[in-house]
């Protein structure tokens, strides 16, 4: 871990990514406590106020107000909770389902493996977005729908990769040798196999989290999943006012952008830093 920290200090983008992610996680946790106004407080006299740097803007509402007079900054800050929660929960559901199925498939093989792999291949034919959309529609207009839908469409990558890794590792000479050496060797196996798999899980997780946040925002945008205090929803709501009040759609979208950017920056750095085998060249 210490080595990792030292590596982090050397990398500008790694630090930047982590900082961004940290800010958003903080906002997600603290949300309403640090928000300047109540995100749902309507004030019809102060509708469509522009951000502070435009003409007519005030510091009271630094990022302006929306069509119902609600403070945009507060909505962005509080909307973080929704995005982060959906993003993280979906990712973890996908992770658990995928890893477990992948491991079973890899170790047991047999008909379970065959069917699972066929299923995964077939899932490729249906665009994930469409499937998620339909699932959400079926499950109903609750935030949990988006979480489940994304979790259920994204697990296949974990399953495939974990499975093939286990298949490879099973045949490794050191595993076979360890088997002949008895119980103590099982610890050795865990010491070797485990880090390997953890690394893969981290890789896939960091690759997916950005995507999941993007897609969940997209689902909110369309209006599925019934979360009215979310970035995607706000972008959608602001569309009608695009000509008059550009900030309504732009600013929540920027929040999505930076959040995903941070995840991607940090994820990229983390993957590189943990990579056991790259021959790096100066």
């Amino acid at each position: 871990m210490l080595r990792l920290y030292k590596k982090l200090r050397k990398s500008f983008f790694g630090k930047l990514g982590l900082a961004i992610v940290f800010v958003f996680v903080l906002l997600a946790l603290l949300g309403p406590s640090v928000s300047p106004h109540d995100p749902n407080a309507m004030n019809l006299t102060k509708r469509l106020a522009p951000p502070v740097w435009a003409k007519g803007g005030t510091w009271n509402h630094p990022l302006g107000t929306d069509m119902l007079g609600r403070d945009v900054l507060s909505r962005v800050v509080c909307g973080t909770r929704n995005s982060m929660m959906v993003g993280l929960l979906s990712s973890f559901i996908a992770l658990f389902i995928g890893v477990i199925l992948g491991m079973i498939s890899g170790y047991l093989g047999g008909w379970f493996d065959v069917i699972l792999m066929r299923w995964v291949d077939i899932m490729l034919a249906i665009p994930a977005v469409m499937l998620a959309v339909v699932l959400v529609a079926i499950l109903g207009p609750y935030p949990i729908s988006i979480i489940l839908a994304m979790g259920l469409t994204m697990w296949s990558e974990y399953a495939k990769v974990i499975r093939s890794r286990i298949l490879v590792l099973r045949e490794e000479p050191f595993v076979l040798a360890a088997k002949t050496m008895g119980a103590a060797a099982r610890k050795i196996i865990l010491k070797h196999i485990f880090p390997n798999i953890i690394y893969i899980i981290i890789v896939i997780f960091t690759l997916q989290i950005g995507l999941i946040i993007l897609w969940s925002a997209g689902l909110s945008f369309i209006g599925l999943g019934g979360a009215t205090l979310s970035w995607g929803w706000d972008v959608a709501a602001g569309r009608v006012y695009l000509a008059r009040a550009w900030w309504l759609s732009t600013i929540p979208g920027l929040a999505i952008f930076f959040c995903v950017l941070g995840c991607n920056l940090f994820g990229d750095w983390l993957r590189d830093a943990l990579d056991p085998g790259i021959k790096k060249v100066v």
Partner: protein
Amino acid sequence: MIHFFVRRILYCLLTLLFLSIIVFSLLHLAPGDPARMILPQEATEEDVLQMRKVLGLDKPLFVQYVNWLGKAVKLDFGDSIQGKRSAAKLFLARLPATLELTLGALILSVLFAIPLGIIAAIKRGTYWDFIISFISLFGLSTPRFWLGIILILIFSLGLGWFPSFGRGVGLFDGIAQLFKGDLATLYEALRNLVLPSIALATFFAAIFVKHTRANVLEEISKLYVKTARQKGIGEYRVILFHVLRNALIPIVTVIALNVGLVMGGAVVTEIVFAWPGVGQLLINALFARDYPLIQASLFMVGGLITVIFILMDIIYVALDPRIRTKGAG
């Protein structure tokens, strides 16, 4: 060779079968009684029972499935609850628009990404590589729907270069008109296509850049490239005929895998640009619980993509002689 094709076709059919099971089950997973939804509010219990009989809902599940499958194969999904017309026909009417958008986005992203990926690989470690990686990162982090809106804001409302919504008459009509000597229609059609395509393409361009760069980097350090170089042929030829000729083959696979995702992404893009495609249709169908239409859309999209996969397989085989011919000892 024949063996290969037969296997692929069988696989395709199996996929469609699984697909049909999924699509069929959706109707039954959903809460609410389809019969009740079709009938007006005042319907009595008897009416509902009667409707269930008509819809065949009283028969065992398996029988329902077989009946449904039989009709689905003929592309008969019943009538759309909203439109009272054949669901399949409704879908097919809107399909060209989505295909147009998907194609436009794919072409744009490939045209853009592959050269950038190649440059990033060849000039690895230099500023070019860095900038391109950065652009790629931005592309991956931008929400499609938001990008669309921003594009509209700047290029439509702001600069007025492009229309802000709609498709107009469509690309296919535009091309048809081209033969009659009419360029204006095609021009209009393309104008409408630009912004939505860019919005949809950006994300995938970023993915393709990364893959292209990785593949080119891998090939360029291989031994046969050194062999080629030391024959004294020009560097352009080395890159073009040796490196790229090998590096781009896996890219075909990547593109194929993403075709489905591009189509999926079209769903959201269509809403932003009021593009009259299948995506919009699906969303409206979902809100209206129009199950025949939902089933029709899902099944046909799935089938279409499966067919595209097979096409991509064929292209891959055509490109890589190692698969076409068997090796020696």
